[in-house]
């Protein structure tokens, strides 16, 4: 029986969610000494990128990388043992969470320093180009890191040297406990990168068909033209909470790291709308209960 890609992805996204929820339980039990940044709500971008990824491609990640590790083949046991700093972990217990990398899956660098991985991606892409190797470098970042000057430098160099890079911006509109509106003006990334002759695509609402086809097309354009592209993906980090601010007001705070204390439904779904990739992908693929 041929399983459609969208069904396969929907199932994968659900598995990724369940593993994260299991890891969350271990965090609630206090099993890990290291900080773990869950990516509940980010699963669709990672699952689709893994599908669009070629074996000759390279992947550079950030401190929030659990969704990519899962999408690129890490098992629950490998991740749990890594977080427990055991030698049977994905990186033999040496990298923990925020620098976790998996070279066997093409993930040769991960940095927890905002904006630090852009320039390393430049070197990897330049090497691919010089050696005439067919491959694309996917460098993951967020709406916080694009505020760093390093982003401007890297896009400028990538465009100047015509390097095969896709900058994937996971925009959850939050940096730690501060939303975009609380810290800066909006950035129109399409205008910003257009000023440097770099192509731009955007994705939202966790439509996996749309995500996968856009990523495949973007990859092809970058591989053929060796011109960089920026792909902005709107994501919702689920698991946020309210804190008492003043006497009569509460403030919503986005999930950043550590254990999530709110419970999803029996399917692991937090929001029954397009902000939750498990809900959306199961609904669209018609394989789940939604």
């Amino acid at each position, binding site marked *: 029986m041929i399983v459609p890609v969208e069904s396969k992805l929907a199932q994968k996204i659900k598995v990724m969610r369940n593993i994260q929820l299991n890891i969350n339980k271990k965090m609630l039990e206090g099993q890990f000494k290291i900080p773990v940044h869950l990516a509940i709500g980010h699963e669709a971008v990672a699952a689709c990128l893994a599908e669009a990824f070629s074996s000759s491609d390279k992947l550079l990640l950030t401190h929030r990388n659990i969704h990519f590790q899962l999408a690129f083949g890490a098992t629950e046991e490998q991740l749990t043992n890594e977080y427990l700093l055991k030698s049977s972990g994905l990186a033999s217990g040496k*990298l923990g969470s925020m*620098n976790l990398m998996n070279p066997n899956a093409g993930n*040769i*660098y*991960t*940095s927890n*320093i905002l904006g*630090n991985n*852009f*320039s*390393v*991606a*430049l*070197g*990897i*892409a*330049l*090497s*691919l180009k*010089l*050696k005439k190797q067919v491959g694309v470098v996917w460098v993951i970042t967020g709406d916080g890191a694009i505020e760093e*000057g*390093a982003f401007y*430098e*890297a896009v*400028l*160099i990538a465009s*100047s*040297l015509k390097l095969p890079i896709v900058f994937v911006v996971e925009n959850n509109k939050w940096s730690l406990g501060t939303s975009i509106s609380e810290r800066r003006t909006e950035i129109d990334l399409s205008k910003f990168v257009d000023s440097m002759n770099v192509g731009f695509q955007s994705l939202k609402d966790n439509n996996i068909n749309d995500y996968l086809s856009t990523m495949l097309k973007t990859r092809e354009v970058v591989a053929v033209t060796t011109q960089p592209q920026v792909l902005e993906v709107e994501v919702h980090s689920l698991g946020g909470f309210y804190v008492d601010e003043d006497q009569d007001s509460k403030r919503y705070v986005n999930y950043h790291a550590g254990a999530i204390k709110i419970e999803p439904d029996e399917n692991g779904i937090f929001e029954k709308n397009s902000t939750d990739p498990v809900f959306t992908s199961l609904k669209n693929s018609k394989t789940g209960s939604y």
Partner: protein
Amino acid sequence: MELTFTQYVNTKIRQKFSSYEHSVIFGQNIVSGSRISGLGAGLDQISNCVALNTTNSENSLMGLGFGLALSETPSLFLMKQHDFALLGLDQLTNTHNVLRNGRLLAPFIVLMVIVDSGFEGPQASLSSLDEFASLSRAPIYFLSSKENIDKAFEMASEPGLHLMALSQKNMKNICTSSQLQVIHCDEAIIYKYLPNKEKPKIAVLFFGVDNSIAHEVSEELSKKSYCVSLINIIKLSKIELSSKLFYEITQQDKIVVIDTGKSEVHFSTELVLNLKENGNNIDLYQRNSSQKWSAVNDDAIEFDVQSIVQKISKGI
């Protein structure tokens, strides 16, 4: 034909990068304009090597070198001034900390010119290599003699980060092989002046990019018939107590340590403390006029050859 330091370092770069199947040399103005006063001459002619005139983006250029090294592509970042590297400290510190344990598959050389010729102002004249070596946990190679340059480029064949520093003041000076007896250690080159076994043994240890003052001190002491060893440090890093060099130093009757770096903390201080604990007779000369670095000045060293020599003569 005699070569200047600039020409000799340029020759070593061209030799090294001619041997690779694919490599990259990059930096600002390296293949046009002054080519960093000649350091970049002919680099665009090296076969199988791409020489890139880059944007003014030092942080990203430092990371670019790490990315190349991760991908088994040797590279050299040629930097006109050491202070430019401050913008790359995140990469030198954070990226190198994650990748230094065997993940870098090719050499990544960063060659910085130390602007020590004076009157450049408090920013351009930065010379704080101790802090860079400490943060990056990578030694910095002083390109202060022909022997040092040879050793530094030999070491730079190994995969990983290699930081090198060259004195601007030295760039036009002739770079020749020493006529003295030369002993090679991992951490230093030892130049032996004519030994007089009846006279006390004196070691002049030099940390810095322009060793002219250490040479002059050694010459003066040699003229007084002391048995002098000029120990020219090659790589700025912690000197282990178990090293051959440390043992060599402890065998001296008198030790003079001269450090011309402008750092607030020095590897040379740690060495001196260890030597004192060992009971050695030692004088330490470091630049300590921090206030001076906040204004334009002649960059002159605060201590001179005669006072160093006189103090030794009295105290031995």
